[in-house]
């Protein structure tokens, strides 16, 4: 009986009282509607960053003087940031992997590490901003720089809050080997935020050194 599908029914197997195949119920991993949803959130957010990079490229090409006007930005802090975000993504991924085996403590640990590293990222980024000696309104380059990295930092902040909530829920025992789609959804978003940083880092920090 389990080989009868609904579309077989539509083809004429009208047996009253027959049972459909067993189907999973509710939000499970990548079957959750929210998992589909977060992919489209990522697509639209990625578009936002593409338009930010488009604006940067457009201004770069049209700008009459040398670009960036104050020379390529310092690499040290931003490189540390890059490593920190990559590490946090790995921690979250390991935690997600662990809960699929039912290891809840490891999930909590992975999420907590990811969350803390996210906070460290924000702290270093704020330090770097302060070291620039410039602001949003200093010139066109800094308008672009602070707005773009600001958008990203806002995404990191949201990601940190998501990871904090997931850490709490994990500690409260809300997830197990079956019911863990919020973890997958939050982790996917966090990986996206990290990937965006790598693209921004390349554009703002590496590319000006190549020319």
């Amino acid at each position, binding site marked *: 009986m389990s080989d009868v*599908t*609904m*579309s077989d*029914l*539509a*083809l*004429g197997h*009208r*047996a*009253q*009282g*027959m*049972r*459909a*195949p*067993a*189907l*999973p*119920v*509710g*939000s*499970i991993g990548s*079957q959750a*509607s*929210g998992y*589909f*949803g977060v992919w*489209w*959130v990522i697509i*639209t*957010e990625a*578009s*936002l960053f593409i*338009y*930010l990079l*488009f*604006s940067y490229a*457009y*201004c770069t090409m*049209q*700008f*009459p*003087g040398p670009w960036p006007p104050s020379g390529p930005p310092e690499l040290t802090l931003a490189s540390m940031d890059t490593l920190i975000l990559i590490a946090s993504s790995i921690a979250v991924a390991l935690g997600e992997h662990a809960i699929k085996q039912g290891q809840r403590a490891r999930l909590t640990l992975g999420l907590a590490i990811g969350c803390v590293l996210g906070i460290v990222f924000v702290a270093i980024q704020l330090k770097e901003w302060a070291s620039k000696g410039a602001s*949003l*309104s200093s*010139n*066109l380059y800094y*308008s*672009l720089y602070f*707005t773009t990295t600001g958008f990203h930092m806002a995404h990191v902040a949201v990601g940190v*809050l998501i990871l904090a*909530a997931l850490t709490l*829920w994990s500690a409260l025992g*809300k*997830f*197990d*080997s*079956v*019911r863990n789609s*919020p973890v997958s959804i939050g982790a996917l978003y966090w990986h996206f935020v990290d990937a965006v940083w790598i693209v921004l880092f390349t554009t703002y920090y590496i590319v000006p050194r190549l020319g």
Partner: protein
Amino acid sequence: MARHTQRAQTPAIVTANAELAERLHKLWEIEPGIKGFLGTVDHKEIGIRYIVTSFVFLLLGGVEALILRVQLAQPDLHVLSPETYNQLFTMHGVSMIFLYAMPVLTGFSNYLWPLLLGARDTALPRVNALSYWLYLFSGLFIYASFLFGAAPNDGWFNYVPYANHQYNPGPNIDFYSLGMIFLGISTTVSSANFVVTAMRTRAAGMSINRIPILVWGTLTSSVANLLVVPAVSLAFFLLWLDRNYGTKFFQPQSGGQPLLWQHLFWIFAHPWVYAIVLPAMGMVSDGLPIFCRRPLVGYTLVALSTMATMAIGFGVWTHHMFATGMSDLALSFFSGVSIIIAVPSAVTVFAWIATIWTGRPVFTTAFHYFAGMIALFVIGGVSGFMTGSVPVDWQLTDTYFVVAHLHYVLIGINVFPVVGAIYMWFPKVTGRLLDERIGRINFWTMFIGFNLAMFPMHISGLLGMPRRIYTYPDDVGWTAWNLITSVGAFIFAIGVLLLFHNIAVSLKRGKPAGANPWDGGTLEWAAPSPPPPYNFVVLPSVASRHPLWEDRLDDAPGRSLIDIGLALDKGRQMLGTTVIDAEPAVILQMPFDSYAPFTLAVGTAIIFIGMLYRSWPDIGIGVIVTGIALLLWLWPGRLREGSPEAANEPPFAEPGHV
């Protein structure tokens, strides 16, 4: 596989029966009182709210247009001051393009999609509720500018440097900038809901070659919105920063780029134009077959043309910028693409004509609107084709010819199909038919009034009349054409009033419609009129494009099943299916009524009001409200049936969220 069976349910296949219907009714009906009013997630309720709200904005935009037409009826009139004129023509455009045209289609799709797809709700019902509240609040936010005498006043595309603070120091443009970002959030979440709904909540067997064209239209628009809405939200955010925090994005004296505004705006706004017509074209593609008594000619070509139009539509934005001094290469490329885009539109038009030609048309009011739309689409399409050519555009840009073109396109391909859709689906929504005699008068008044108003604009444009001037001298030869336009505008307005009159009369005295008054072939006509809260007693399975016409067409390998199927009555449940073939994949647990979307929208409104006043405490409160709403919304429920750790839970322990 072992883990799968643990958390699975093996649903019984049953015949629809009264006892089951009653049980589902209790599960799915909107809660009474304030909880139901603020917390409903029912797609039909949300759809109706969307449609009603968008018509209120249509009325406001219409009244604004009529005032403009009084001012322009004769030369040298001073009914309006130039500043008031600027605010009114801007708000006319904003109301129609942003607060009416998309939301009305969102409303129809909200109401119709689950019925067309054989489901009980959209995939993300709380997101759906959120999108409505955000839409309502953002519309009110933009309109609140009138209370300060400071409505947006630089036209709907709001070019810098006019819109920079040096030249426009009032709060007008801040209202517009923040309002558009606000509205963009609504559009985005609504689009995400539609895409996920189309991907996974179709009836079993509704593979992608059996999806109604309306669904293709809205799906295409939704994907496009997700890709391009960020462009305009970003543009408005950068402008807001320029105006309030001294950034240099659009400040030419500091190396900023005014043309960057135009690029970001039109990268969004041209696809948007398609987004606000493709679902309406879908209504025509689904409506004509019913009134021509045959399936749509060229279903596959029409579905592909829908997507092709949008794909090409991403690459035509600079035809709005031909006069800005771009390179010849860019001019040639974008001109070519703008002309090529006529091809998929023409495919669709010929498919409609062939459907009428080879069918046996029934001349209902709805058919009049759909057929009338084809005529207007052709006129608007040809004038668009003309302005796609660079030299013609250089002559006509910023004249009334462009105004004529965009009204033929937007009223022709949005308003006419929407009114046709009202005549067609009103019986489904209310259980009563609209009056056909008033309907006929309604159509001809609108059709004649529209052409009388808009066609002469082509001529005043060719005679050199620029758009957006608040008056003109009497010796330039535009007087007669403007008078005709103004008279036509009022006749058109009377036509719209006749529609409201018909609705008011028919709500009380209309003939009872029954489930399928037009003998339609798609699933929505299988549900009672009005449909019950759960839509379908058992979840239908589908064997062809027209489940209700199979006995006649005999085009299916088997037969669709409407009254035998899965009951899915353990909580609010419906079926999740696979993306391409729509094979059953999962049983979805749907949410109950919830305050969270409303609260989240209120928090968002507080943030935007705070941004308008640049009040950080206000923004902080908004962020906290938003955060709490999200946290409660997403708070995981108890571990449910099937989890090894929760073996003793009751079988359907999906809790209602806040």
